[in-house]
């Protein structure tokens, strides 16, 4: 049995690694001989089989092919409908995880418990969906770990560094940045920040627009008219992007599917870098935000570490070099280090101190003694970057006589303005009648190692209390019963 297994369930690629007896992690290839499996699922119409990986990606029936499902893991209403059956994002992810489990276990031994990586800014729902996906695939999640944390663990293990490290992880779909302190085997995470929908696939989309523009100019026709052909051209743009990391100029020839002629596409690195400049500026904002959160300056960082395929873009390196005054280091193979780090994390988690990725609180009327104003605000109980696991209590007072019901909203987000936080749950507590205002109510939030939150509300006078774990509702969220039922169904499926 493989004891320490890590899985990088990526937006575009997924990988599984295990810890060898010598203490070093190793990537386990799938049955197609690939070290990384494209996170793509194809639902065949002729046979009752789900294809996962390269075969699915290159198949060619776009309305039966699911790409980048990870981007929807935090959407409670997202569903994919194939042949009248509705699939949740967790189920699609479970198909990818099932392939990895079934095929890799033939090489490294039975896989029952895993560490799975998630983006640092994955919210509560997305984390819960990831755990559900693993359960459906027949694996227990020992821990979820943030992707940049996993990469940093691998970097520290393989390079033997000491000091403050900033990990810049620009993958296929998300950007994560984490600052941590490394001292031998001990790792202390200081902060993690993430940006959604910011990664290599966004760059591919921009290149696709450039291809379409050049095609239109040369032939007067549109480059693609259906999803199948758009996918083919997108594949070509991805190759062109990779080439532009090595060459200053790349030429390609493309045709549409209407016999409108062939166009010669001419791209330069300079032009490509201009195209993605706005997105890279967003990444600079995020790095600055991480530094601010950790109360550090760029000069306080000893090592800048690059993770994720998009960090091969030369502009990324020069931009960070300019910002930090030192050359960023690559984390070995930038595509594999997250999975490798996850396998290491499975063994070393006790020596790694993590922090809460978001603030949790409740909505309360807050009275400002100076201005004498009362305003509905997000009152934070657990601040972001608290060391986890943790538990914090905040005491509030009822503000009206004869309140019969106390309603406590559980918020996620650090903004004081209630508009900019998510209400992810609510506790309703019945309290005795005929009480004057000013009764104390203690609200305790607990945060576990998997970044899951629980809330406890205690009415101090009556002693009545209620505790809940956050649960989500929506078409794309499975109930516990449904999860069990679909798990059994999924385990009997043919997945290749």
């Amino acid at each position, binding site marked *: 049995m493989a004891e320490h297994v890590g899985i990088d369930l990526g937006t575009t690629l997924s990988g599984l690694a295990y810890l060898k007896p010598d203490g070093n992690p190793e990537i386990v290839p799938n049955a197609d001989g690939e070290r990384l499996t494209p996170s793509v699922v194809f639902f065949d119409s002729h046979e009752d089989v789900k294809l996962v990986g390269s075969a699915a990606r290159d198949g060619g029936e776009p309305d039966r092919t699911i790409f980048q499902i990870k981007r929807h893991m*935090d959407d409670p209403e997202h569903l994919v409908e194939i042949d009248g059956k509705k699939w949740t994002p967790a189920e699609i992810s479970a198909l990818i995880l099932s392939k990895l489990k079934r095929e890799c276990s033939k090489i490294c031994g039975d896989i029952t418990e895993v560490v799975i990586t998630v983006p640092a800014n994955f*919210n509560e729902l997305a984390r819960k969906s990831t755990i559900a996906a693993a359960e459906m695939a027949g694996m227990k999640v020992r821990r979820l770990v943030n992707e940049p944390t996993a990469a940093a663990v691998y970097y520290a293990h393989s390079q033997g560094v000491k000091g403050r490290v900033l990990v810049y992880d620009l993958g296929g779909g998300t950007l994560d940045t984490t600052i941590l302190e490394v001292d031998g085997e001990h790792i202390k995470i200081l902060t993690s920040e993430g940006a*959604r929908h910011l990664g290599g696939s966004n760059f591919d989309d921009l290149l696709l627009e450039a291809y379409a523009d050049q095609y239109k100019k040369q032939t007067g026709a549109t480059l693609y008219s259906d999803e199948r052909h758009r996918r083919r051209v997108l594949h070509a743009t991805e190759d062109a992007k990779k080439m532009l990391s090595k060459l200053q100029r790349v030429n390609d020839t493309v045709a549409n599917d209407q016999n409108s002629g062939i166009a010669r596409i001419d791209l330069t690195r300079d032009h490509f870098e201009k195209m993605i400049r706005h997105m890279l500026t967003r990444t600079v904002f995020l790095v600055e935000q991480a530094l601010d959160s950790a109360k550090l300056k760029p000069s306080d960082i000893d090592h800048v570490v690059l993770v994720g395929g998009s960090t091969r873009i030369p502009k990324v390196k020069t931009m960070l070099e300019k910002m930090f005054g030192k050359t960023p280091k690559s984390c070995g193979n930038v595509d594999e280090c997250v999975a490798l780090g996850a396998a290491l994390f499975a063994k070393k988690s006790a020596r790694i101190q993590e922090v809460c990725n978001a603030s949790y609180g409740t909505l309360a*009327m*807050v*009275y400002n003694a100076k201005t004498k104003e009362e305003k509905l605000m997000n009152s934070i109980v657990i601040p972001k970057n608290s060391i986890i696991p943790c538990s914090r209590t905040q005491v509030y007072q009822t*503000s*009206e006589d004869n309140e*019969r019901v106390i309603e406590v909203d559980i918020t996620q987000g650090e903004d004081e303005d209630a*508009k900019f936080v998510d209400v992810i749950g609510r506790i309703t507590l019945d309290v005795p009648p005929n009480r004057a205002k000013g009764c104390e109510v203690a609200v305790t939030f607990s945060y576990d190692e998997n970044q899951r939150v629980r809330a406890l509300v205690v009415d101090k006078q009556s002693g009545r209390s209620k505790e809940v774990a956050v649960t989500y509702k929506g078409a794309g969220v499975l109930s516990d019963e449904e999860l069990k039922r679909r798990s059994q169904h999924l385990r009997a499926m043919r997945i290749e």
Partner: protein
Amino acid sequence: MFKIFKNISKSLGGGKATESKPAAKAGSLLDKVNKGAPATAKAEPPRTPEELCGITPKMPKDEIRAQLKLLFRRYNRSASSLDAKLRGEADKMLDAIVQVREKHFGEI
């Protein structure tokens, strides 16, 4: 600052509800808050990136920088909000924030 816990349904509705109400589904309160917030959805003429970011012509550089940081933190988080409307707004705001930065502090 003194924090007062208050029954939210009363505080927003203004009435003296004494009966217990069924718990609203998560997110409904946020909708109410959105409705109570200054209207941004009204048909208005297109606003410049500076206007969207609350940057005035004579604002000092360090204030602009601080404002952009605050807005980026707010809207980057909103980009993964459970509220689809807020997610859409966040994308537009993030574009505006980047444009203002490039205009006032140069390209990366």
